Structures are given as C-alpha cells and as structure tokens.
C-alpha cells in the first residue's frame, strides 16, 4: 500500500545556505491494513518521512508510492493526524469534520449525517457545536481523527498524535484508535518516539536512525490482540527495541531542528 524506494530528502536552510540530509536511502513497505509504527529518536527524520508519504513534501531522490501510484500531492485518501491540533479555530467541531466532505462534493444533509456519526464515534457528540479552543488537548486529537476518518481514507498517517497528551489520556486514545482500526480496517503509519506506545499499537515496528543510517530494525510484534500493557512479553519486546535504540548514534544538531518541525518551503508547499 505504501512503498518507499531509496528515498532521500535534503533540506537547504534558506538563511545559511547549509544543506541538511534528513533522510538517506530509505526503503520501507507498509502492507494493506497493516499497523506500522515508525520509531526513532527526535530529529531522525520520522516526520519528514511521513510528510513525504502525505505529499506535503517531495523526495529529493527515490520514489514514494501509494497503492502503486507515485505520490504527487496531499489528498483525502491519505488522512493525516498532526501532532499539534490543526483544527480550524473559526469552525465548530462539526464544521471542521464537514470541511473535507464539502471538498469531496458531499451534499449538505449527508455531510451533517456523516459528521454526526464520526463525532459520536470518537465520543464527542455533545461537543459537536463547540469551537476547538473550548476543547482539551485529547479532545482536539479525537476531532482530528474524526475529521480524517469521515473522509474514509485508505491510510491513516499519524505524526506523534498523542505526543503532547498526559499518560492517562494517551492510553485511552490508543485503545480508541485500536478499536477504530479493528472495526474500519485501515493501513496505519504511526510515527512515535515512545517505545511502549509502538509495542502496544503496532503489527510491526520500523526503527529509523538519523541519516545516513536509515531503517536499522524492522521488528514484527506478534503478541496477540487485545494486548495487555503490563504483560511480560510486552516488556520483552519493549526491552528489545530499547536495545536497538541505544545503539543508535545520538542526533546531530542540525537535523534535530529539521526533523520534528517541518521547514517552511514556500516553493514546494505553497501552490500557485
């Protein structure tokens, strides 16, 4: 479903002219309906990789394929859940969910019905008319999930979506995500730096090291679902991944500033 062939990405800093290698020769395949976690230290290029799959950025070299077709631009078949809530503050929860449906040409009544269904799915039916700033961080992330699910994407691309939430909220949202994934069957590429999270969620964990190393481990998690966060085999898998991570070189400084927060590149991201 998602396929990266020898993908490299260079960023040029507009002010200093310095060129930074964010990704080098990455190969990665995510099968249909598979839940893959991309694990790695901060600044190793995880978000960059996700942005390439999403279509926000173009690879400097190599190919990014989605369903066999090269990715040219962002689109609703790849629903992105961002780390920071990017709900439109001028729209209500309901209108935020309807935004994409409207772009797809869904009629008014049907939009209403779909948005209600998905706002209920994430347990926020009572907040359909609230504005984003009235919601907590966890609620905002649930709305983000609802607004992409409403578009019935073939894949979910999630960029540390629970990274800034407290542990309890995070656990609950992880369970909710797994529920939805099992009921709706989507391909998921989930970026995280949290080892426990990766082990709990994933069918397979790919460990991304800072360039030039690339994907250094690709570990299937075969523990049957539903998983128990505190079971011994979970601990073992976690320890194994921590050992892999411990061998990675620590991040070099320049790429740290690039990996997690995408650099503004007006030429590629601003259309027109």
């Amino acid at each position: 479903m998602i396929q990266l062939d020898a993908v490299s990405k260079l960023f040029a800093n507009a002010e200093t002219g310095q060129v930074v290698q964010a990704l080098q020769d990455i190969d990665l395949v995510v099968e249909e309906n598979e839940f893959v976690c991309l694990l790695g230290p901060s600044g190793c290029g995880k978000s960059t990789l996700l942005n390439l799959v999403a279509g926000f950025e173009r690879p400097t070299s190599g190919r990014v394929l989605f369903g066999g077709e090269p990715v040219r631009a962002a689109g609703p078949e790849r629903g992105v859940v961002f780390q920071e809530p990017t709900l439109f503050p001028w729209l209500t929860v309901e209108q935020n969910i309807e935004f994409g449906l409207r772009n797809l040409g869904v009629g008014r009544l049907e939009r209403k019905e779909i948005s209600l269904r998905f706002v209920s799915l994430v347990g926020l039916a009572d907040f359909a008319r609230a504005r984003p700033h009235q919601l907590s961080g966890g609620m905002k992330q649930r709305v983000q999930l609802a607004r992409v699910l409403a578009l019935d994407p073939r894949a979910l691309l999630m960029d540390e979506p629970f990274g800034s939430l407290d542990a309890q909220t995070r656990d609950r949202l992880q369970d909710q995500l797994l529920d939805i994934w099992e009921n709706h069957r989507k391909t998921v590429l989930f970026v995280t730096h949290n080892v426990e999270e990766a082990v709990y969620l994933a069918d397979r964990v790919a460990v991304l090291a800072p360039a030039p190393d690339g994907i250094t481990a690709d570990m299937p998690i075969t523990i049957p679902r539903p998983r128990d966060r505190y079971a011994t085999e979970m601990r073992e898998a976690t320890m194994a991944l921590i050992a892999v991570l411990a061998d990675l070189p620590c991040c070099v400084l320049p790429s740290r500033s690039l990996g997690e927060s995408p650099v503004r590149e007006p030429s590629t991201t601003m259309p027109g």
Partner: protein
Amino acid sequence: MSTSPGSAGPAPDAFPQPRAPAPVGTHQPPALRLARRLLPWPGILTAIAALAIPLALWWGLAAIVMHLRPVAFPTPYDTYLRLSGLLRGQLLNDFTIYRHVADSIQRWALGFALAVGIGVSSGLLLGWSRLLERLSMPTVTVLQLVPGLAWIPVAILLFGVNPRATIFMVGVTALAPIVINTTAGVKGVDEMYLRAARMMGAEDSTLFARVLLPGSLPHLLSGLRVGFANGWRVLVAGEMIVGTGTGLGYSIIQSRWTLDYAAAFVCIAIICIIGLTVERGILLPLERRTVERWGLARSA
C-alpha cells in the same frame, strides 16, 4: 507575522473601565479609600467627567475668543440649539441635515465598499504570492504615505468636480491599510492549516475562501478599522473641495460665506459621533469578538 495596529494586544477602551481592586499589600491613601466608598460607580463618573472636560474646555474657549475678538464663536449651547433646529427640519444650504448626512454616508459607503473589495482580494493575493508581494508592496506603501488631501487634484483630473471624485478619495485612502493588513493576516496563517486543508482535498479556491480569508480575519478587521477612519476623514475634506451642494464637509466649508458657524459645529459634532459609533460600536467589537470566539491567542 507582522504586528499591525490593533491586532496584537487589547485596544484601548472607549470609556475608562472601573479599576480592578488594588492588589493586596499595595498601600492606598485613606482619602482614596474614602472616595471609593462615597462613589459607588467610579466607572460611570469618570466617563461623565471624560465627556464634561472637553465641553468645559470648549465653553471656556468660546468665552475667551468672544471676549478678545468681535466674533460669534458658537458655545456648546448655541450648537445644541442649532442642532435641535436642524433636527426639526430647518434647512442648511437648501437641504435638510438628514439629506446632508445621508449623502455623506452614501459617498463614504461607496468609496469604502470599493476599497474593501479591491483591498481584501489584492491582500489575499499579495499574502499568497511572494513575487506579487515584492512587486506590489512598495506601491501600496507609497499609497499609504500620500496625504489624503494630496489626492484632490488627482480626483478632480480623473472625475471632475463631482461626487465621484469624493468617492475616489475615500476609496484610495482606505485602500492601503486594508491591503497591508490583509496581506499580513494571510502570511500569518499557520502553514499547518494549509497542509491540513490540502490533505482534506481543498482546491486553491477553497483555500482562499475557507482557510486564508477566515484565518486572516482578525488582521483584516483591524485593517478595515484603520481604512474606515482614513476614508471618513478624507470624505469631509473631499466634500469641502469637490462636493456638490450636499454633505457634511460641504456644509462646514459653506459656513465661510453664510457665517452659520453653529451649523458648522453641528456638522463637526455629527461627523465625530458617526465616526465613533462605527469605530467603537461596530468595528472594534467585531474584531474583539472574532479573536475571542476563535480563541486565537495567535503566536508569532
């Protein structure tokens, strides 16, 4: 994101607000404490005082001028009498005061509507395209630096001595702040919103109408506020020069010949009241409500 007037911090209030209770530990003079107890609504009293002070100054000035020079400088009372006469339908330069006010507002509204239409759409484009911004922003900046009255010869050359010249002047002076603020607003829209919109299948036109426009609205509204004030000021000046028989500015300048200075003062007062009402009563609350409703603690 650039800081444009009125968009970043809370703007000053139209009327002084009641003071918050002094923080614990702050020393308060006993006289002040006594005054607080005797005056239960310091806010209202200060508001009344704020209105009374300019009136008192006006009255004093009128008395002094009339003492020194043999002219009938209208006092607030004279002005009030003339106002009530005009409101009852007395004619001023062959027309009722209502006609003058209506014509002025109409000229302003046409000019302002033109400025909003052109200003907002070009601001959206300039905020969008670096190239367009680099090409056009110098012109807009120069436009902003031209004093309103300097447009009079241009307006007359373009339209003749004709209300359209006034409309042009209103539009051209309101335009620059609207363009500048809209541009800043669009540039301030977080790139993540654009990515999210694209991901949800938004075309360029959707991006403009449903992301960039609402996203820049707080800035845009403060641009409208400045543009309104510019246009309203130059309207009066424009009517003085190129107005044709009606309008508040025309009435003020006619008092030179008719010596009806009280009526001129009435017109000045009406201009102030309309200006204050639109600015403080409509535009500023609209801007604040927008920022509040969206919970926009906009970061740089």
